[in-house]
């Protein structure tokens, strides 16, 4: 009953991941740890693919992880699982739109949810960083080449005004070329 399990896992993700695509990341790591459907390495690749293809990132990640788990039907089931809670919640909210907007309890909940979501994405980022900068072997596998590339990318995306707003797909392509040329 892999399909039921897939649907359930992504239904959960869709229900609790608040605040856009990257917010699904901590849930995907949790799924990877518990089910072994995909590895941390594959998840990192998945983020790169999602960032460089059209469509909402959360959906892309669900489709890709569903595919890794059980092929085409897996990707359809995972995506449907992810969007089902959204559809239900939004159809309910649409009926009470203004009341929801100015409710002090709703506002209070999001006051607490936003920093929590940010913290969980930070933690997910640390997991990817460990795989990346230590080549899976902590701490002996430390990779100077990876840190150098990260430093270059940080300079381009933060300090140089002309390149700051470039689309992520450009940096992904750039990093792929660097990776091939310098045998990362």
């Amino acid at each position: 009953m892999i399909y039921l399990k897939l649907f359930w896992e992504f239904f959960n993700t869709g229900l609790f991941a608040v605040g856009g695509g990257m917010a699904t990341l901590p849930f995907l790591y949790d799924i990877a740890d518990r089910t072994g459907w995909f590895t941390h390495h594959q998840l990192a690749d998945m983020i790169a693919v999602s960032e460089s293809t059209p469509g909402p990132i959360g959906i892309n990640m669900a489709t890709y992880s569903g595919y890794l788990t059980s092929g085409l039907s897996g990707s359809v089931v995972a995506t449907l699982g992810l969007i089902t809670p959204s559809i239900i919640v939004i159809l309910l909210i649409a009926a009470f739109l203004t009341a929801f907007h100015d409710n002090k309890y709703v506002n209070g909940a999001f006051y607490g949810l936003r920093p929590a979501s940010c913290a969980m994405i930070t933690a997910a980022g640390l997991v990817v960083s460990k795989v990346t900068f230590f080549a899976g072997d902590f701490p002996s596998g430390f990779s100077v080449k990876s840190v150098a590339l990260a430093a270059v990318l940080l300079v381009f995306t933060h300090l140089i005004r002309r390149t700051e707003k470039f689309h992520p797909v450009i940096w992904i392509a750039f990093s792929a070329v660097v990776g091939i040329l310098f045998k990362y």
Partner: protein
Amino acid sequence: MKILIDLFITFAKMGAVTFGGGYAMLPILQREIVENKKWGTEEELADYYAIGQCTPGVIAVNVATFIGRKTAGNLGGIVATLGVVFPSVVIITLLAGVIEYYSSLEWVKHAFAGIRVCVCVLIFNAVIKLFSKAIIDRKTLAIYLIVLACSVFLNVSPVVFVIAAGLAGIILKVRTK
């Protein structure tokens, strides 16, 4: 029936041309939905985004559900949402097959090792952007640090953090008023 087909095709087109998630979709929504199809106004779009940001799920999906429902009822909401995810499912499934097939090649491995570094930087940048909006005082900073420490050191489902942080937010915000 005609309106449902129109909804599906319009949202599928938008799903196919938007790179980079919900926010990148806003200008395209403004052109297609407000100016071309007249299914909604600028103000409604802004409201949908605000709500989409603080409800579970992907923002683009939330906005599609809202506009579809407004245009053709609950069924319209479902059809518009299926439309917006349709291109992703097709494109990613095709790519995933190709990537899995080539991933044993030496140069592809090098490429992905480089790309993984880029992914770290992209996540870091996303965190910085979110941090400036989410951490606005000492209490939100405390929530951030506690959840970060717990996610790194404890093996707890993220669902627990979401529920706990939501409750903490209600208690902190509503009580102090």
